[in-house]
């Protein structure tokens, strides 16, 4: 806290770009651990990475269309990222059905296609430039009011869907066989949840960038599940971890003038390490106490 000179907080009132960045961060910091929890339970952590790489194809095609072809009907390549993320999700679902017993094969296939398309269109758009850098590592400070509203509305829809289908989603995530027995339409839910994931992945790109999306989704959950006492409690803790790293990351990146996406993810990792140490210390202490109690009897 020694670093505080309050300038970040004053700047928040002064510059709208900082306000937008913070609001975007807070929204994403809330929704990503919720979606991330379901992803972790279903052991699908790689999907987020695959989809974010596939979104990069959309971003680079968008850049190509806007910068080289001069198209003006897309204001921001981030919208194309979302469309591509959803297309990537559809590809994954199709391939998962095709390789029933080797479902994870779908990920490298879709990821390669996304990465290859990205490389192709990045080179066609004149090679590596600052916009590509921003998409790879995040550019929360460049989020405008239009995209912020888009993020808010989309997130609200996603959270609404989760609220309505909470029971089914939890049941399918924890025990697919039993969910099937209860008559839940597994394929339909799986399809919808992959689309939701694709949408959230593409929205996270603005916050931390293509390469760090999965960490925003997974790391707070990985930390929370080591200390959570129930499902809801774990999600709440994950949201707290995630919001802490987003607010802290934005503040630090502003004060120290360093990349915000990287700072957010590194703070997330720091929390993960601290939780690990806490558990180690706490569990050992408890074991020791139990041993003392037994010896005392």
């Amino acid at each position, binding site marked *: 806290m020694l670093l505080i000179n309050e300038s970040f907080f004053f700047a928040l009132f002064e510059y709208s770009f900082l306000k937008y960045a913070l609001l975007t961060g807070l929204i994403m910091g809330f929704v990503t651990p919720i979606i991330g*929890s379901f992803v*972790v*339970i*279903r*052991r699908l952590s790689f999907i987020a990475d695959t989809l974010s790489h596939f979104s990069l194809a959309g971003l680079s095609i968008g850049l190509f269309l806007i910068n080289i072809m001069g198209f003006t009907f897309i204001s921001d390549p981030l919208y194309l990222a979302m469309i591509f993320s959803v297309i990537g999700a559809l590809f994954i679902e199709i391939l998962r059905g095709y390789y029933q017993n080797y479902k994870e094969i779908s990920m490298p296939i879709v990821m390669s296609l996304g990465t290859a398309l990205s490389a192709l269109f990045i080179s066609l758009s004149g090679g590596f430039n600052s916009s590509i850098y921003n998409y790879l590592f995040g550019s929360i400070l460049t989020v405008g009011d239009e995209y912020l509203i888009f993020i808010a509305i989309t997130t609200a829809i996603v959270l609404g869907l989760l609220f309505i289908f*909470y*029971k*089914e989603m*939890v*049941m399918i*995530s*924890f*025990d*697919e*066989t*039993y969910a*099937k*027995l*209860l*008559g839940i339409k597994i394929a339909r839910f799986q399809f919808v949840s992959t689309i939701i994931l694709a949408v959230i992945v593409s929205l996270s790109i603005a916050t931390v960038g293509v390469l760090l999306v999965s960490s925003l989704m997974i790391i707070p959950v990985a930390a929370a*599940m080591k200390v*959570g*006492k*129930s*499902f*809801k*409690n*774990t999600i709440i803790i994950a949201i707290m971890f995630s919001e802490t790293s987003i607010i802290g990351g934005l503040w630090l990146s502003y004060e120290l003038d360093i990349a915000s996406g990287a700072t957010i993810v590194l703070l997330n990792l720091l929390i993960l390490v601290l939780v690990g140490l806490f558990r180690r210390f706490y569990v050992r202490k408890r074991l020791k106490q139990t041993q003392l109690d037994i010896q005392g009897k």
Partner: protein
Amino acid sequence: MRVSVSNLTFGYDYRTVLKDISFVLKSGDFLAVIGNNGSGKSTLIKCILGINKITPNRIRLDDVDVVDYKNYKNIGYVPQKFDDFNYEFPITVNEILQVSKYTDFTEDQKLELLDKVGILELQHENINNLSGGQLQRVFIARSLMNDPKLLILDEPTVGVDRENVEGFYKTINELNKEGITIMLITHNIHESKANFTHVLSLHNGEAVFREVSGGDE
């Protein structure tokens, strides 16, 4: 629930697992399904549960063909081990039961059920902290959440210690007395203290169905 199986034959690819099996259970019957590993016990259960797709008119649940059966909430199922369940992520007993509830089962009914199964004090416990026997009871409670008319248990006492096994059969016998039809797959019929009314023994996919005299084996 009445369960009737008539001339059921089922296999995977080129291997026939169940050969021409027929039997009928009335409401309140208690069937033991016995047989060696690979004799088709679990396959039969999966046919009844609609997980294995079979041809029409082979299995009827309360006079509805299993192929068209929609009301699976009427059937409680306790799987063999809980391999299908994703562990490690925290979730409490209460939370599991909450998401398994698909009828207007009240909070009081739930507490009564937890008490009957003997896990009332564990309701707020993270399932990752439970023992095998306790977990067993959680899954039995889950299978009873929707007031089933048929309860299917697949080797439910594997890995559960002797003391808990006895408690378990006591609970199952009580449920059966309340009129629930029960199908229990078991390795060792003599070890179980269940009040079977019928036994189906499977051997190489063929079945012998008989009634147990005196209601106890």
